[in-house]
């Protein structure tokens, strides 16, 4: 199959570590999540740093949803009904506090967090 024909496959790479070159985009930053804190504070520092990237990612998924359902009904389904129908209380509390940092709808955050199950659709 095409998979075994160069350039889509290659000899086993060596000397790639420490990560460098064109296959290494960048390092990953560290955050501490203090489980002794109430959910409202655990994620604030992280989400404050990443909220622009999170909004961009959720917008990309919304654009995809609009491409499939231009009427916007799919987005409405996510924004309005998903939360009440789908989520166990404990974790939704966690998510709820992410929602309190108001820049995206709780339904969209819920969808992001159950995307593994939804993706099989």
């Amino acid at each position, binding site marked *: *199959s095409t*998979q*075994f024909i160069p*350039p*889509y*496959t*290659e*000899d*086993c*790479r*060596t*000397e*790639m*570590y420490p*990560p460098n070159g*064109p*296959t*290494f*985009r*960048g*390092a*990953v*930053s*560290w*955050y*501490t*999540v*203090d*489980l*002794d804190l109430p959910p409202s504070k655990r*994620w604030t520092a*992280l*989400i404050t*740093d*990443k909220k622009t*990237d*999170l909004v*961009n*990612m959720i917008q*990309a*998924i919304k*654009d*995809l949803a609009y*491409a499939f359902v231009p009427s916007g009904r799919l987005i409405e389904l996510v924004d309005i009904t998903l939360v009440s*129908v*789908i989520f*166990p209380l404990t*974790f939704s509390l*966690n998510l709820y506090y*992410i929602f309190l940092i108001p820049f995206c709808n709780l339904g969209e*955050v819920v969808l*992001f*967090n*159950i995307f*593994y*199950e*939804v*993706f*099989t*659709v």
Partner: protein
Amino acid sequence: CTSIVAEDNKGNLFHGRNLDFGLFMGWDVKNKSWIISEKLKPLVVNLDFKRNNQTVFKSTNFAGYVGMLTGIKPHIFTLTMNERFSLDGGYIGILEWILGKRDGMWMSFLTRSVLENAHSYEEAKTRLAQTKLLAPAYFILGGNQTGQGCIITRSRLLSIDMLEIDLKLGRWYVLETNYDHWEEPLFLDDRRTPGMKCMNQTTQKNISLKTMYDVLSTKPVLNKLTTYTTLMQVSEGKLESYIRDCPNPCMPW
């Protein structure tokens, strides 16, 4: 996704994974990349979960995603999960959930609960194998003793198979992509064969975090869907991650 647990000839266990995501969710023609994969890369973070100022577990996450796909309980076990495709998939679990049948767990919340609450490799293995799920999955688990490395193949309700490291049989590593190990992978998406070829070429004597990164950097194990690579060494309690790129020419998946 590709997950590997390997044991070197001194008994050290290494666990590495590529997190691939975003298939068929919008292709950016100009940049030759998947839209959602590119949007996820800036969200990759490493998290250190602490209680009483002590590390309980560490993970690699996407910001805003509270479930666990990649994690380590330092000096105890390491855990990653890969997607498993099945007709009896997550949409059936979601439907049952909506209809009020709620005895199944959301996959990434099971992995979070195991990382937070399990105290040993055996306990983690039991919980991952026996807890009902809403969607099928592969759980790849590494421990802290020789031979402790396994792939748990899960349907929504059952543990279908468990493949473990077995040095007596010469199986010094287990490698999982997204297909049942007793079947051939989809001919258009065989990352298993190149991955195993490179592991065998590396040999048990030379396996380390460094050489495992080499394996995870070889196309098509590295592909356009790969958002990050994580390397973990349970004995050191070490987790390190790197955001990846796959310059053209590169396999879309």
